[in-house]
């Protein structure tokens, strides 16, 4: 079966539809997932196709949405719960981190919690400080959770499909800036293996590691660098935790140079975990420190102009990497 061009949103939607057709125990619950079709349209029409209770509009009760999904997952359903914005994680981290993630362990392996928590994050809509965050590092620090952040249309489909087969809670974080992005979806050909990064671009001078929307800003930067004669390999982490980075280590051992690009603010962010692992495993081969190019350590401002520059731009990425590789220090240095 050949690939088709579609959007990130529709790939996610098809993943849900295909899975729900195959697995009768899958139920979707969350705010506005039904009649409204999802705040970003991912579940549009599903309530007509599958009806209640397989598609359940919930009240605005985030902790209970996740808690209900936990109980349902323990008793035979496979809930796909939606939290409209990852920024609301602060209301559900107890049910997610203390309950769903630890139940298998605390109960000595008696039972798991096979649920998916779909949510979306990131900047791009002038949605301000409480609707624009990137909080993946909170989830990645909780043993028992699996954390997925797809960038490509094909990953959106395949990783969501696979998430709905896992025996444990999967936090599946989409990006509000990617929903209308087009790309090829091939239901017969995943981009790569669950739990491993995927190389999106070849390059022998430097390894750039990113995920979610920042992958494309990084690809754009790589193109610009190519114009300057710098060949950057770009790797997409996709599955943040658990994650086997050995293929990335091999690549970095070749280039001796690496940078990690995240939208989340630098301090305490997941970029620190990636940079630390690379520094640990590639130490002998590194000719320069692993750069962390991330969001500014500030809340996200509402003004479009400020928002745009609160996260890494292709300019910032390209200039930083050019310096890292060719010692061409940019104007601001």
């Amino acid at each position, binding site marked *: 079966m050949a690939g088709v061009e579609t959007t990130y949103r529709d790939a996610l939607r098809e993943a849900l539809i295909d899975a729900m057709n195959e697995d009768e125990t899958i139920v979707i619950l969350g*705010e*506005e997932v039904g*009649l*409204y079709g999802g*705040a970003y349209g991912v579940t549009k029409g599903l309530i007509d196709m599958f009806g209640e209770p397989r598609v359940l*509009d919930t*009240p*605005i*009760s985030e*902790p*209970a949405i996740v808690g209900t999904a936990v109980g349902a997952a323990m008793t035979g359903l496979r809930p796909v719960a939606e939290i409209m914005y990852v*920024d*609301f994680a602060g*209301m559900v981290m107890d049910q997610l981190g203390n309950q769903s993630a630890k139940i298998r362990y605390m109960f000595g392996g008696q039972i798991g919690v096979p649920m998916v928590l779909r949510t979306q994050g990131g900047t791009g*809509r*002038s*949605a*301000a*400080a*409480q*609707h624009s965050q990137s909080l993946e590092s909170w989830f990645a620090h909780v043993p028992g959770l699996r954390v997925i952040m797809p960038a490509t249309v094909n990953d959106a489909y395949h990783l969501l499909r696979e998430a709905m087969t896992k025996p444990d809670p999967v936090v599946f974080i989409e990006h509000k800036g990617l929903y209308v992005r087009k790309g090829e979806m091939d239901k017969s050909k995943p981009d790569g293996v669950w739990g491993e990064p995927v190389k999106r671009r070849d390059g022998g001078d430097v390894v750039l590691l990113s995920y979610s929307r920042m992958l494309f800003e990084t690809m754009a930067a790589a193109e610009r660098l190519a114009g300057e004669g710098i060949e950057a390999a770009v790797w997409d982490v996709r599955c943040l935790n658990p994650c086997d980075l050995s293929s990335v280590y091999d690549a970095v051992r070749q280039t001796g140079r690496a940078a990690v690009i995240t939208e989340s603010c*630098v301090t305490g962010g997941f970029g620190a975990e990636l940079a630390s692992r690379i520094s640990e495993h590639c130490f002998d081969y590194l*000719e*320069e*420190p692993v*750069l*962390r*190019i*991330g*969001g*500014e*350590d*500030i*809340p996200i*401002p*509402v*003004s*479009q*102009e*400020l928002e745009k*520059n*609160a996260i*890494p731009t292709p300019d*910032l990425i390209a200039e*930083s990497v050019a*310096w*890292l590789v060719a*010692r061409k*220090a940019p104007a*601001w*240095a």
Partner: protein
Amino acid sequence: MVASGSNRKLFELYRTMRRIRTLEERVGEMFLRGGSAGSMLHLSIGEEGVAGVCATMKEGDSFTTHHRGHGIFLARGGDPTRMLAEIGGKADGYCAGKGGSMHIADMGVGHLGANAIVGGGIPHSVGAALTYKTLGQDAVSVAFFGDGAMQQGLLYESMNMAAIWSLPVVFVCINNQYGMGTRIDRATANTAFDQRARAFGLEGEVVDGTDVEIVNAAAERAMAEARAGKPQFLSMTCYRFHGHARMDKSPYRDDAEETEGRKMDPVLKARNRMIDGDIATASELDSLDEDIGQEMDAALDAAMAGAAPAMDTMFDHVYGADEPRPESVRTKIATVLNEAPR
């Protein structure tokens, strides 16, 4: 003519409601003209009855609002130009273009902030009331929120604390009957919200939110009781005239319902009452409306003419003055690479 006493009061309430409606219309216009910061703009058209609550608040009282709080702020003294500037993410907005529509605030008039988290601001009013009681200040804090927040557990934790500590706080639910696309009866099995307040030890009342005089009378009682240390709950029933936010065309409700719903018009109701009661003539009110239209036009033009915040201000106000501003990523990278081998 416009008589005095309660007639005068109705007239003033009408003026406030009309200013709210016109401001919100300009917000919608600002969006269409591409001048707003984003599309997450929630108009309070149909909810102008809140003017009846706002009129009972005194200087020194404080309030918190939700994401649909433009009207409440305006009624409490917000300056339309600075409000629209903030909604446009401009440097001279109330929050220097950092907060926007969902985080507008003005300590000057006791506005402790709009909130983009449903229910998020409610305990802040409880905390303010705790301050007033602890420091012996004669003030009340009012928490405004929507019917959607009636399904947030935090509300009940907040009510419970207000009740055990006898705090001067009033919880005001603006029940516009929708949370995004979810009609209230799909969000809860019992919409008699006053029962919930009583179950936690508060006094509670549900009133017609489209009759500003009824709202005003209920709020007078509630504010007086709250000032005396008896926390209150008030739910005002109304109808959300437009979509949830600017992008929402409300496909989940049919036109017939909307037509019916929009008949619940607090502004029109007050206008007709004044005309029928010979409190004001249609032409007097028309010219008042016109003045307000000009006021808001001017505000919109002034706001849109404003400049975006200087890029560097991004790093201001993360911490208080005792802490240096956060280093930019550029600076961090420059430091690292300058330290690295030449």
